C-alpha cells in the first residue's frame, strides 16, 4: 500500500504575542519500512520541530497549521489526544538528544521501562519486566538484570542512550524518530550508537528518521537525505546523490566544508554568514544573503523544490544550470 509515513505540505506555526511565526513551511517527505531518512540542517532550521510534529508534541505555543501526516494510512494531525497518546511510544518512538536529561532521575530504569509497556500492552508486570530485559539485551547492555533496578545516575552516558533506545524498542514500533541521538556523547561512543540504530532498523523492521546537523553521520547511516534551511526542505534525494552530486549551493557548501571527504565524527565547517532567524527571513530565497551564485530572481521569488532527474533528486534553487532548468 502507501508509505509508512507520508508528510504532505506540513506547516507549523508558533503562536507568539506579536503574531504567528512560521517555523516549518510546506515540507513534504515520505518514508518506507526499513528506510532511513536523514534530516540535516543548521541549528534552528526546524529539524526538531519537524520530528516532534510527527507525534504531535511540539513545545508550547507551537501548533500544526497545515498539511497532513499520514502514518500507516492514518492522518495523525486529525487524531484525538487519546488516540495520539496510544500511538506515541507505541507505534512511533522518539530518541532524544541528551541521554543525561532524558531519563527521570528518581525512578529506576526498570520502572521507566515497564511503565511504557504497561501503558500500551495488556500484560502483567512481570511480563513487562521480561520484555524490558529482552530489549536491554538487544541493545547490548552488560548485566541487564542488574540495570533494571538501578537509577539513571548509576549508568554512563552511552549506557543511558542505549537504555533510551531500548525503551524506544519496547513495543516494537514501526517508526523511530531520533533527534540528534549522539550529539551529546563522546565521539568514540557515537559510532557504536549509530551502528546499533542501523542494525535495529533492519532486524526490527523499522523506519528511522535521523535528525542531525552532522552530515558525515547521516551519509553513513541513511538511505536518503532531506536538507533543511529556515523551515523548508531545500534539497532532497538518495544519500549517494546528495553527497556526490549536491545541487543546491547550500548543500554544496555543507559537503565542501567537510574536511578531507567524509569522516565519522567530523562536524560541519562554517558557511559564511548565518541562517536567518524566523522573524527576519529575507524575501525570495532565504539563502540568498549567503549565496555566491544568486541572481535578481533570488531576491524576489521563493524557489520551489524541483525534480532534477530520474533519481528522486530535487532541489529548490533558481540558479541551477540551464540544462536542468527545463526538467
Amino acid at each position, binding site marked *: 500500500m502507501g508509505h509508512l509515513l507520508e508528510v504532505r505540505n506540513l506547516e507549523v506555526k508558533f503562536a507568539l504575542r506579536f503574531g504567528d511565526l512560521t517555523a516549518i513551511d510546506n515540507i513534504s517527505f515520505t518514508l518506507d519500512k526499513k528506510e532511513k531518512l536523514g534530516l540535516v540542517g543548521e541549528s534552528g532550521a526546524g529539524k526538531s520541530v519537524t520530528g516532534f510534529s510527527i*507525534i504531535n*508534541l511540539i*513545545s508550547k505555543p507551537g501548533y500544526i497549521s497545515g498539511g497532513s501526516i499520514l502514518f500507516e494510512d492514518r492522518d495523525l494531525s486529525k487524531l484525538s489526544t487519546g488516540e495520539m*497518546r*496510544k*500511538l*506515541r*511510544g*507505541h507505534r512511533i*518512538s*522518539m530518541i*532524544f538528544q*541528551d541521554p543525561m*536529561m*532524558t*531519563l*527521570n*532521575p*528518581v*525512578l*529506576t530504569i526498570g520502572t521507566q521501562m515497564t*511503565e*511504557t509497556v504497561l*501503558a*500500551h500492552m495488556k500484560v502483567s508486570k512481570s511480563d513487562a519486566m521480561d520484555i524490558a530485559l529482552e530489549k536491554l539485551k538487544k541493545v547490548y547492555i552488560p548485566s541487564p538484570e542488574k540495570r533494571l533496578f538501578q*537509577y539513571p*545516575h*548509576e549508568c554512563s552516558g552511552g549506557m543511558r542512550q542505549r537504555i*533510551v533506545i531500548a*525503551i524506544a524498542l519496547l513495543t516494537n514500533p514501526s517508526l523511530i524518530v531520533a533527534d540528534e541521538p549522539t550529539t551529546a556523547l563522546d565521539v568514540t561512543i557515537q559510532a557504536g550508537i549509530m551502528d546499533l540504530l542501523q542494525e535495529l532498523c533492519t532486524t526490527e523492521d523499522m523506519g528511522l528518521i535521523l535528525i542531525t546537523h552532522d552530515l558525515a553521520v547521516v551519509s553513513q547511516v541513511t538511505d536518503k537525505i532531506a536538507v533543511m534551511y529556515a523551515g523548508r526542505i531545500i534539497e532532497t534525494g538518495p544519500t549517494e546523490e546528495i553527497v556526490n552530486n549536491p545541487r543546491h549551493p547550500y548543500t554544496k557548501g555543507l559537503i565542501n566544508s567537510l574536511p578531507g571527504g567524509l569522516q565519522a565524527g567530523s562536524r560541519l565547517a562554517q558557511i559564511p554568514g548565518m541562517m536567518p532567524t524566523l522573524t527576519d527571513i529575507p524575501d525570495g530565497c532565504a539563502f540568498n544573503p549567503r549565496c555566491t551564485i544568486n541572481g535578481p530572481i533570488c531576491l524576489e521569488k521563493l524557489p520551489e523544490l524541483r525534480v532534477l532527474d530520474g533519481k528522486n533528486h530535487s532541489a529548490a534553487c533558481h540558479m541551477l544550470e540551464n540544462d536542468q532548468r527545463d526538467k
Partner: protein
Amino acid sequence: MFAFIVRRIIQSIVVMLVISFIGFSVQHNIGDPVRDMVGERVSVEEREAIRDKLGLNDPFWTQYIRFVGNAAKGDLGTSYFHSKPTLQVILSKAPATLELVLVSSIIIILLTFPIGIYSALFPRSLFSKIVMGFSTIGVAVPVFLTAIVLIYIFGVELNWLPAYGRGETVNIWGWETGLLTWDGLRHLILPSLSLSSIMLPLYIRLIRSEMMEVLETEYIKFAWAKGLNKNRVWLVHAFKNTLLPVVTVFGVEIGILFAFTLLTETVFQWQGMGFMFLEAVERSDTALLVAYLMVVGGMFVLINTVIDVIYGFINPMVRIAGAK
C-alpha cells in the same frame, strides 16, 4: 546508612554544643542564680558565700563544662518562678506547642501541595490566578493581623469557634493532648490556621514554581513521548521531582513555625512553650529561657534529621552517597 547516621549524630552534637554555648553565655552574663535560689532579701556577704559554694566564681570554661555535663544528664537548671526543674516546666508545656506546630504543618501540606500543583499545571485557570493574587498579598500580611481577623470573624462575630485556650484535653501517658477531644480540636482550628498562614503563600509559590520547572524538563517531555497518561506523567514523574527541593525547605520552615509560636500562642492565650517563654522574659526567669533555647534547639536538630532521612528515601542519589 550507618555512615549517614554516625555523621548526623556528630553534626547534631556540634550543633547542640553551639546552642548550649550561646545559652550558657546568656545565662552567665544576665542571669543571677543566687537570686533565683534565695530571693532578694539576703545580705551581700551571704550571697558571696553561696556563689562560692555553687562554683559561680569559677572560670567561665569550668562553669560551661559543668553546664554541659548537667545538661547531658537532663538537668537544665531550676526555674526561679515555678520553683521546679526547668525541663519539667518545659515538658509540661511542650505538648501544646508541638500539637499546634503539627496541626499547622498538616494544614500546610494538605493545602499547599494540591493548590501548588494545580496552579502549576493550569497556570492560566481562574483559580490559579486568584491563588497567585492572594499569595502575593498573603506574603505581606503579618501573622498577628491574620490571627486578629480570624478571631474577630469566627470567634466574635460568628461565634463559631473558640478564640483562646486549649479547651478540653486528655492526659495520655503524661501527654496532655487536645487532639482527642472535640472541644480540643475546635480550639486548635484558629491558632493553627493563623500559624500556618505564614507559610501557605510561600509554600504554594515554591511548589508551583518547582513543579513548573520540572514540567519543562526533557525527562517530562520524554515521558509524554512514551505515551504515558497525564496522571502518570504529572503525579509520578513530575511530582516526585518536585518533592525533593520542597522537602529540603520544609526543615527550615519548621524552625520558622516554632519561632512564630511565640506570637500565635500569645494572641490565642495558648498555654505552650512560646507563651511560657514570653512569661519567662517578663519575669527574668533566665534559667527557664536558656532551657527553652536548648530544648527547642534539640527539637530542631531532631526534626531536621528526620527530614534528611525522608529526603534520602526520595532521592536515589543521596541513598548511594550514604551507603558508601
